[in-house]
């Protein structure tokens, strides 16, 4: 099994991303444009500075009543002629979708962008049954043609230049090489229009379902999700179980914030509410509507008070747009459809803490994500919690301590800090021993063993021969 989460892969992909000047430019562009613009939008809402906290309370309330909301949603959708399937894990979700496809004789599928379908490996499963799956979000379409994975939650092909897309389209669509986004978009528009019109089934995600009214919702700008949920005769919507709110009123603040966080917009261009198939005597719309609600490890997060808050996430990607680490390593290094700060928390929780440990250790805990999150989720707190479980082990999450040598070193240092005389002695010997790792004069240029990572690219100031505590001892007190 090709594990996407090895440290070798993380390191290799990070280095690759860092040395890719075009990618660096693209990431700087996304962050430069959206980071500050999003902040501005938060502060210009009529609710004022407290809006993110309000949004947090709404989401928290919904999560704490998730059982009621899901049952209400399911009952209402069923009332309106839709079918609801509760999938406890990825395999159940996928096999239900395949069953629906088989029942309706589906040969071709058009898809709106949906991270949860990536999470459960839907495309491969459909293709395995000989079903043609066309990603229709322009960014997803591009990477599907290129055989790659998304590198950003909202802008999946952000890592591609217009020249690369032009080359790709020339090869795959047979058009002239034209590195112009307008022309390239038109080419995709034409190619995908055919797919939309011919498709048997449309698959979408769900941004935030409304339990009160029994609708799923999708938010986009391109129109592909509307096409996927209107033109084919079957519509299947995938929904992570936490993506639901109680009332319509909840949508007011949350859709504004989602649009701000995702694209610094007042409101996404298209917001669709789908509550079931249309009646047979209506001119169009799907004849069958299936909603697949997925757990796949989310109930485990729900059960842990330390991580329950993560379920408040509305997948807007505002955190990606400010994270300095994401801005360097890009989305692919995370090995998961969820990248950036949200990925650093969600991926270990869904895929395994030890497996995905580099995602939560490979962050600087700078806190920019918490400031950017429209729902005021304390992502840094959860990164600290994940590190705690990985450092000391955790039975609930099946986490094994990551490094016994490191633990012993930490314990030893802790002991020193509790024994000041020993601490002072250690400080003294360190200042003497450092001549072994550096010239007498000047900074240290080479540190030993695990510390060498620093000195590969940086010098390190020496420990002073007269630390402050020695100078303090000999200082003359003023009168």
């Amino acid at each position, binding site marked *: 099994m090709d594990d996407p989460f090895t440290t070798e892969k993380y390191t290799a992909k990070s280095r690759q991303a860092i040395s890719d000047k075009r990618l660096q430019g693209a990431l700087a562009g*996304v962050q430069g444009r959206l980071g500050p613009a999003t902040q501005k939008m938060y502060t210009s809402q009529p609710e004022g500075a407290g809006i993110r906290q309000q949004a947090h309370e709404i989401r928290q309330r919904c999560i704490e009543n998730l059982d009621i909301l899901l049952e209400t949603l399911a009952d209402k959708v069923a009332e309106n002629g839709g079918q609801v399937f*509760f999938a406890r894990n990825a395999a159940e979700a996928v096999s239900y979708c395949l069953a629906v496809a088989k029942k309706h004789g589906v040969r071709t599928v058009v898809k709106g962008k949906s991270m949860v379908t990536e999470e459960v490996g839907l495309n491969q499963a459909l293709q395995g049954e000989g079903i043609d799956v066309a990603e229709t979000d*322009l960014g997803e379409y591009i990477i599907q043609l290129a055989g790659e994975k998304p590198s950003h939650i909202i802008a999946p092909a952000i890592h591609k230049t217009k020249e690369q897309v032009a080359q790709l389209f020339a090869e795959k669509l047979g058009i002239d090489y034209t590195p112009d986004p307008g022309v390239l978009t038109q080419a995709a528009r034409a190619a995908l229009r055919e797919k939309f019109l011919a498709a048997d089934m449309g698959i979408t995600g769900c941004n935030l379902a409304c339990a009160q009214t029994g609708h799923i919702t999708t938010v986009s700008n391109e129109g592909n999700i509307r096409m996927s949920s209107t033109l084919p005769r079957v519509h299947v919507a995938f929904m992570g179980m936490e993506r639901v709110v*109680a009332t319509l009123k909840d949508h007011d603040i949350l859709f504004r914030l989602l649009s701000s966080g995702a694209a610094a917009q007042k*409101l996404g261009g298209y917001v669709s509410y789908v509550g079931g198939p249309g009646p047979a005597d*209506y001119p169009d719309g799907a004849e069958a509507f299936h909603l697949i609600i997925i757990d796949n490890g989310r109930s485990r997060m729900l059960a842990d008070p330390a991580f329950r808050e993560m379920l408040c996430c509305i997948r807007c990607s505002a955190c990606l747009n400010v994270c300095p680490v994401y801005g360097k390593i890009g989305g692919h290094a995370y090995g998961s459809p969820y990248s950036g700060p949200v990925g650093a928390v969600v991926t270990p929780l869904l895929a395994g803490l030890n497996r995905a440990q580099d995602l939560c250790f490979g962050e600087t805990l700078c806190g920019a994500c918490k400031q950017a999150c429209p729902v005021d989720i304390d992502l840094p707190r959860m990164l600290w919690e994940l590190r705690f479980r990985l450092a000391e082990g955790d039975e609930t999450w099946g986490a094994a301590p990551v490094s016994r040598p490191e633990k012993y070193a930490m314990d030893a240092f802790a002991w020193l800090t509790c024994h000041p005389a020993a601490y002072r002695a250690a400080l003294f010997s360190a200042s003497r021993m450092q001549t072994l790792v550096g010239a007498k004069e000047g900074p240290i240029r080479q540190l030993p063993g695990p510390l060498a990572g620093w000195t590969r690219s940086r010098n390190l100031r020496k420990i002073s021969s007269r630390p402050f505590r020695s100078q303090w001892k000999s200082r003359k007190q003023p009168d």
Partner: protein
Amino acid sequence: MTQNHRASFINRVRQSLGPDIGPADVRQARIFPQTSDAVTQNLLQTVQSRTTQERETLLTVLMDQALPLNLHVTPVADPAEAAQQIAALVRQKNPEWGEKKALIRWSHPLLDALELESVLADQHIPVHITAMDPHADLQKQRQVIREKTIDSFMGITAADYCVADTATIVMKTYPHQGRAVSLLPAVHVAVITLDQILTNLTELYAVLDDYEKNTPKNGLTHHMVFISGPSKTADIELTMVHGAHGPKEMHIFVVRA
């Protein structure tokens, strides 16, 4: 079909919430308030007592907000003027696919009042309509409507509400209203009336909530869409392009009378 694990799924969620969550009926009442709160009541009152003058102010806001979205908003005195404006658009625009020009519209009283069929008669342009005859073959009619929608370069709809602050039109789906009319043709034209304009999303949701609570079954209908301008994408190098998969161009005509 595959077995649905609803009971064990919900049970797992309930267990995960912990033992102290309290009785379901209490939680149910708290999370789904039966009556609207004071803020919502005030908003509804404001909407109902809005004067024409106040609505004109909202129209100005709508036009300002529409500008950066590449959304064209034009006030007209009456349906006849709207029809003239649409006829002008039809003359100016060329079809995206193919040579023939055709229109498709909803069956709706406001759109009927435009009398587009006769206004466009001199241009010999067919105006299709997404009306269904419940007594005839439904599948066949749907197929025909679908083909006509595909062949139309302009789609005309009405709307249920319009939000000035975000330049959004809101369309539920009632009988004889094709969803693809505002999606497949390259140009989408929406005709609304001045009194349909609301201030912002908060007002909209108050109105929707009130309607939903007072409608016996599915007040929002099985499909509702908010549209805030033509389709667009910035997926290639963050460069904004208008006309991804939905309409490339969008017009709203606001009928004053």
